[in-house]
């Protein structure tokens, strides 16, 4: 018999006579089955009898008692068991993947684990590619919401199905092996036994408990059957119920599969979207707090270094770089330092004689000292190179630093000079070595903002970028040789016949004599220096060339052409030789110090940047960026824009959006109730956004009372620059610009956020404003035009109504449109609509209009804002508006000159003289003006100056006269920098977003969002509707389920 048959899984009676059954089998119930076919015992193979499950019980075999039970847990418990089961799944994977052991169940579970792990991997991969924490975080939020939706949707779907039919399509059970499975996973397998001892609410009970409560089995099943409307008097009712439950489960699960593909992304999208804002806020807060905390510690150290608590005239600012680095915890990377050191040095070539001199010193006079030991080590490491001996540069570094040490300060000048002469030659870099050094600095300081400071100091003080030539005997010999070579080359180029006729002096040219060399030295401008700078080198070169020319001319019987030719060759050889002798002398300690200074500044800039990134930088997820994300859309809402209006606003054509905006503002301005409501909403929003940013910025820029971090850094680095490098401006300028930037940033934010409010105010009060400008009546208007033609010339020939209308339009246009300085310039040159002439020379007209657009809030408007925000907010806005007005009109010197013929437009745009007179006289009436000016220009003041002004203010408050010892000095030091004329143009050009642009961008965001909303909620509603219909018809009699029941026999 082929053994093939043994392997077919059939039920086969075991014959103890034929085969020895493995001992394991004997305990199985089948082992004791009596043979139901005694007649065919003699055959070795008996056809298998189909095993039908649970319908007929084989004789003598009792079914094993079921130990599985239904699972009843709520959604949280379910989530808990899911998490727990992942540990099991990991083990399943180990068994299957590494040992090859498993079942369909266990291997199937690996898939669940794999999907989770893969998604986590994806989220991590995507997060790593994102640069900002929110973007990173959202990847994981997306992942979490995706799985949450995937897990939760069948439960959402299951709830109404269960409510309607009593069937829970997510019902789980634990089988006899303790494995968790779904009851309706396989429709062909209906584990009815599980329902035998279950309470009517679905709680599985023990047999005893069950029978205490119920007489018959399947109470739960009966309850479900009742709910399903299965007739009570039919045969096999429980089976019928089970079948109906199966039908509903299949229907429910199919519905689940049809909807899951839509609902998983939709729900995930909705939840992730909802999570985004809270997450953004939380991250923003966390980042800012973290950055602030870091800044706290940093500022404390900074305070110590600038001696902030001492009175301003006795402050001692730390200027020792090492101390500063220690205090601030700044380190320069060891690697960079080593690289720099090795770039700064080269091997030291010594002649045998010089070598011996050094050897004597090392073994004699300096024996035992640190310097002596280092020198000996260097001499011992010397390598022979031709006639010279070469000391390696890494040893030379030690020798040189020992030479600079304290112990060597007191040795006699002669010896020291000799040592320096011999040893410092290792500081001479060739051109290519010098290029490498420069490249190093370029790389090290690239993009740090410090390069300019560095270059400046190099240019002015630590000069090491100029090539030198050493005046020495070897230079003399070199020049001599170059001249001889030059003559030889020239002769070689000549016609041979002609060459043979040359005088002997040329044929045997011997170069320079020592006396000639001496005369060259005395003629050239070398200032008795051994190292010649570029000017001295050139001078020497020229003298040498001239000397040779004279010499050639003195040779008898040499014609002029030959002289010219030979001298040309000599010149070119000398040029080449001198070029080759060029080297750069690097003052080690200074360069190292400068490098340290640059690194410290770099690190300080980076520290500030870290803080700015979390707060006010124009970079994703900073406070500023988040403000810009949120506020414009909220404004749109506050202004009650309709969908159509938003669509028009967001259109690509700006002119259209301006019209929509103007209409909206007019409508609101015309309705006092609406105006109040809108204004209050917007003010509250603006206040919140501005305060957040202000808090962050003030930390950097500071106030008169509490100087900012940047001011402190500026002072510190200014002092260090001055003390160490005689350059206090470079670093200070760098930080000044930084302070200005921060300040402008703030101004622009306030400007952008407040401008829409101010524009509303302008629209509201426009009639009054225009009436003021044009006179209240036709008559007054005509008089103005007639008598004031300089200002009113553009209205000439216009009727009063037309003039009013066109001026209004003009102001609206200015108010809404782009507001950078260039636009203003051209705007003012433009015509008022309807008139033919621009307003270029109308000083007062321009001033009036500027006041309307960029002036203070009207009284009634201020009253409304006060209710929603506070007085401080109004003051802040008004101050900002005024400053912006200055920027537009007065700050730009050229503009002022062109427009106003150099006349002073407002007294306070060149405030120094007038103010200081008053203040010196103890008249503090305009002190607040001074304060505002100081606040605006504080970047240019030092901490001492700010402190001095603080003193002045305190004195003024008490009503005393502030004693200014030197008025001139006071003006020069403090008030001159405040002169607005000194402002640079770039400052004036920076301004916030124009109103129309502001709302256009907001509208575009809203539109893209509404597109998303439409799709997401469209899908959501559609799917829910579809599901509702399907659920409503679930469990009904249909094509597949005819519901034919047989009545129970009576």
């Amino acid at each position, binding site marked *: 018999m082929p053994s093939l048959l043994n392997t077919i899984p059939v039920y086969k009676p075991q014959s103890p006579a034929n085969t020895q059954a493995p001992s394991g089998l004997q305990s199985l119930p089948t082992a004791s089955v009596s043979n139901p076919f005694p007649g065919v015992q003699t055959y070795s193979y008996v*056809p298998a009898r189909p095993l039908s499950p649970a319908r007929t019980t084989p004789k003598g075999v009792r079914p094993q008692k079921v130990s599985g039970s239904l699972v009843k847990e709520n959604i949280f418990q379910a989530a808990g068991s899911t998490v727990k089961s992942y540990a099991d799944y990991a083990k399943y994977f180990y068994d299957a993947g590494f040992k090859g052991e498993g079942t369909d169940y266990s*291997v199937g579970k690996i898939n669940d684990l794999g*999907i989770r792990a893969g998604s986590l991997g994806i989220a991590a991969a995507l997060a790593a590619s994102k640069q900002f924490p929110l973007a990173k975080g959202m990847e994981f939020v997306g992942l979490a919401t995706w799985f949450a939706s995937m897990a939760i949707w069948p439960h959402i779907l299951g709830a109404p199905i269960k409510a309607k039919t009593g069937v829970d399509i997510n019902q789980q059970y634990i089988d006899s092996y303790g494995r968790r499975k779904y009851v309706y996973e396989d429709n062909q397998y209906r584990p009815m036994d599980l329902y035998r001892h279950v309470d009517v609410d679905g709680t599985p009970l023990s047999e005893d408990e069950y029978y205490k409560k119920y007489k018959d089995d399947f109470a739960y099943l009966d309850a479900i059957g009742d709910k399903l409307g299965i007739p009570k008097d039919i045969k096999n009712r429980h089976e019928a119920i089970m079948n109906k439950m199966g039908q509903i489960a299949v229907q429910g699960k*199919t519905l689940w599969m049809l909807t899951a593909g839509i609902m998983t992304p939709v729900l995930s999208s909705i939840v992730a979207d909802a999570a985004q804002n809270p997450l953004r806020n939380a991250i923003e807060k966390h980042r800012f707090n973290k950055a602030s905390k870091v800044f706290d510690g940093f500022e404390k150290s900074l305070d110590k270094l600038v001696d902030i608590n001492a009175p301003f005239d006795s402050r001692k600012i730390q200027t020792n770089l090492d101390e500063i680095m220690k205090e601030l915890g700044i380190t320069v990377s060891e690697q960079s330092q080593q690289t720099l050191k090795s770039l700064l040095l080269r091997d030291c070539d010594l002649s045998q004689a010089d070598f011996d001199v050094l050897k004597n010193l090392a073994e004699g006079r300096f024996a035992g000292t640190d310097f002596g030991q280092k020198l000996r080590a260097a001499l011992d490491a010397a390598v022979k190179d031709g006639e010279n001996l070469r000391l390696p540069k890494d040893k030379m570094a030690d020798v040189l630093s020992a030479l600079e040490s304290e112990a060597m300060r007191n040795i006699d000048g002669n010896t020291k000079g000799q040592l320096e002469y011999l040893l410092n030659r290792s500081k001479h870099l060739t051109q290519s070595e010098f290029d490498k050094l420069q490249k190093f600095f370029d790389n090290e300081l690239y993009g740090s903002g410090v390069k300019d400071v560095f270059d400046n100091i190099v240019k002015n003080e630590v000069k090491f970028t100029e090539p030198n030539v050493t005046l020495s005997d070897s230079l003399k010999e070199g020049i001599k040789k170059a001249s001889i070579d030059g003559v030889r080359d020239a002769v070689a180029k000549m016609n041979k016949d002609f060459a043979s006729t040359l005088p002997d002096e040329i044929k045997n040219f011997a170069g320079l004599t020592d006396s000639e060399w001496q005369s060259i030295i005395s003629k050239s401008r070398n200032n008795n220096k051994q190292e010649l700078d570029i000017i001295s080198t050139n001078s020497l070169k020229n003298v040498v060339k001239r000397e040779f020319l004279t010499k050639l001319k003195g040779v008898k019987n040499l014609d002029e052409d030959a002289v010219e030719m030979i001298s040309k060759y000599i010149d070119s050889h000398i040029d080449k030789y001198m070029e080759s002798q060029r080297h750069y002398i690097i003052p080690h300690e200074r360069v190292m110090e400068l490098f340290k200074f640059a690194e410290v500044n770099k690190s300080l800039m980076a520290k500030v940047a870290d803080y700015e990134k979390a707060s006010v930088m124009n970079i994703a997820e900073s406070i500023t960026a988040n403000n810009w994300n949120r506020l414009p859309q909220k404004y749109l809402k506050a202004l009650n824009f309709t969908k159509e209006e938003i669509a028009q606003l967001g259109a690509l054509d700006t002119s259209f959006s301006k019209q929509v905006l103007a209409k909206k503002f007019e409508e609101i301005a015309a309705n006092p109730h609406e105006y109040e409501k809108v204004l209050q909403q917007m003010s509250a929003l603006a206040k919140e956004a501005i305060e957040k940013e202000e808090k962050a910025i003030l930390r950097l820029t500071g106030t008169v009372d509490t100087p900012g971090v940047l001011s402190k850094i500026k002072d510190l680095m200014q002092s260090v620059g001055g003390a160490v490098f005689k350059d206090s401006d470079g670093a200070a300028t760098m930080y000044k610009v930084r302070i200005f930037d921060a300040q402008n940033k703030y101004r622009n934010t306030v400007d952008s956020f407040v401008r829409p409010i101010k524009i509303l105010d302008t629209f509201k009060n426009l009639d009054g404003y225009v009436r003021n400008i044009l006179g209240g009546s036709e008559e007054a208007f005509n008089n103005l035009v007639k008598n004031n033609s300089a200002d009113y010339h553009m209205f000439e020939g216009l009727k009063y109504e037309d003039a009013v209308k066109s001026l209004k339009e003009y102001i609206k246009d200015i108010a809404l449109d782009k507001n950078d300085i260039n636009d203003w310039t051209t705007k003012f040159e433009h015509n008022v609509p309807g008139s033919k002439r621009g307003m270029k020379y109308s000083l007062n007209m321009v001033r009036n209009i500027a006041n309307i657009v960029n002036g203070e809030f009207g009284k009634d408007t201020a009253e409304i804002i006060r209710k929603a925000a506070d007085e401080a907010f109004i003051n802040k806005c008004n101050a900002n508006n005024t400053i912006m007005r200055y920027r537009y009109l007065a700050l730009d010197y050229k503009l002022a000159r062109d427009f106003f013929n150099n006349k002073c437009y407002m007294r306070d745009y060149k405030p120094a003289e007038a103010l200081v007179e008053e203040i010196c006289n103890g008249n503090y009436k305009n002190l607040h003006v001074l304060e505002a000016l100081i606040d605006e220009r504080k970047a240019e003041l030092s901490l001492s100056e700010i402190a001095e002004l603080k003193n002045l203010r305190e004195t003024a408050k008490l009503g005393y006269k502030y004693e200014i010892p030197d008025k001139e000095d006071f003006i020069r030091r403090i008030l001159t920098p405040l002169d607005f004329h000194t402002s640079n143009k770039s400052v004036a050009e920076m301004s916030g977003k124009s109103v129309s642009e502001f709302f256009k961008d907001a509208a575009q965001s809203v539109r893209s969002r509404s597109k998303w909303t439409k799709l997401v909620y469209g899908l959501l509603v559609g799917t829910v509707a579809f599901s509702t219909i399907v659920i409503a018809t679930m469990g009904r009699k249909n094509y*597949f389920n005819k519901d034919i029941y047989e009545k129970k026999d009576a």
Partner: protein
Amino acid sequence: MVTVSSIKNNYADRSVSSGVSGNVSFRADELPAVNTKPKEDTLLKNDVFSKIRVNLDKAVDIPLIHIPRGMGGAPDYTFFEFLQTAKVPYYLGGPILAALFNAGVKMDSIKSGNAAKMVAKHMALGVGFYYLGAIAAKAVIDNTVKAARGLDLNHPYAKVIPTSTKDTGMFKKDVELHKATESIDFTRWDLMYNKKGQTPEEINERYAKLAKKYGLNGDANDIDASVKPLIKKTIIMARAWQYALTAFFVTLGIGLANQPVWEKVSHEGFKSTVKNGIFGKNLEFKSRLNAAKIAVYDYMLKPFGKSFAELWKGHSKASSIAGKSIIASTAAATLLAISLIVGKTSARSHKIENSGTNKVGGGRQ
């Protein structure tokens, strides 16, 4: 659980008293094509076209048979049908997510619209690469097993469904297209015998072939019994590693889709190349071929290769570490999977007792 009954159908009525029968001449075991409607469970032809046909038939059945039957709650609805229906959300979810993302993109201004379009493009590519990654993970293991052990994990068989209710009418299904090795617990060993065989060698022919690949030298009569445990082990390991590698490959897929090189690949250009270049009117075959080459190489393979380089390099420290570890770990996991499957399923790493004779109960290890 129809194994036993179907075996009965196959064998019980035939006398198996001796191994050789003079009446039925032995023919090479030719498997039926996919579209034949067999009367009993039958292993089907296994060439590429058959497999495509199998997948096509299965896909068509989802909306036409499984969904209507599921929506109606057919009493004889099977687990297989449920699994088929589960492909709907799998293939629907990704594109819908991408569509939702695309809808949230700010398209009004040209500048921001372009940037956002790029992000949306990465997203759509990512969805596509996700599915490709999953397919690739499966293919790696399938091909490894096929090459190393000669076992085709996707060998289709037609499972005859006795439709018990008469009410399934137009949605009646007579045949489900399963895979012979889809179940670990209920592998269709029976189908892998050559039913037309007369001698044990002939009947066992398929097992003998596999055994050779497994490095198993056994008696041809009971070689099946010896190789079955190894096959089972192979199925378990292959399935486990397919799931595990999917995690790595989909991550790799998303990582690749996220690389800047795809931003330079113009979707319009590709569409035009296909539409006007390959399927354009009045073109020479040569230029069509050339266009196809461009479409495949310039628009797909080249940027695909470049995306690997970009993923490896990264654009920041974090992304470079992430990129390197994604590529390296995927490669490492793949190698580990292959080496484990090849190593552990070989007969050489198992102790096999050779029964030698046709003893009952022989071949057990």
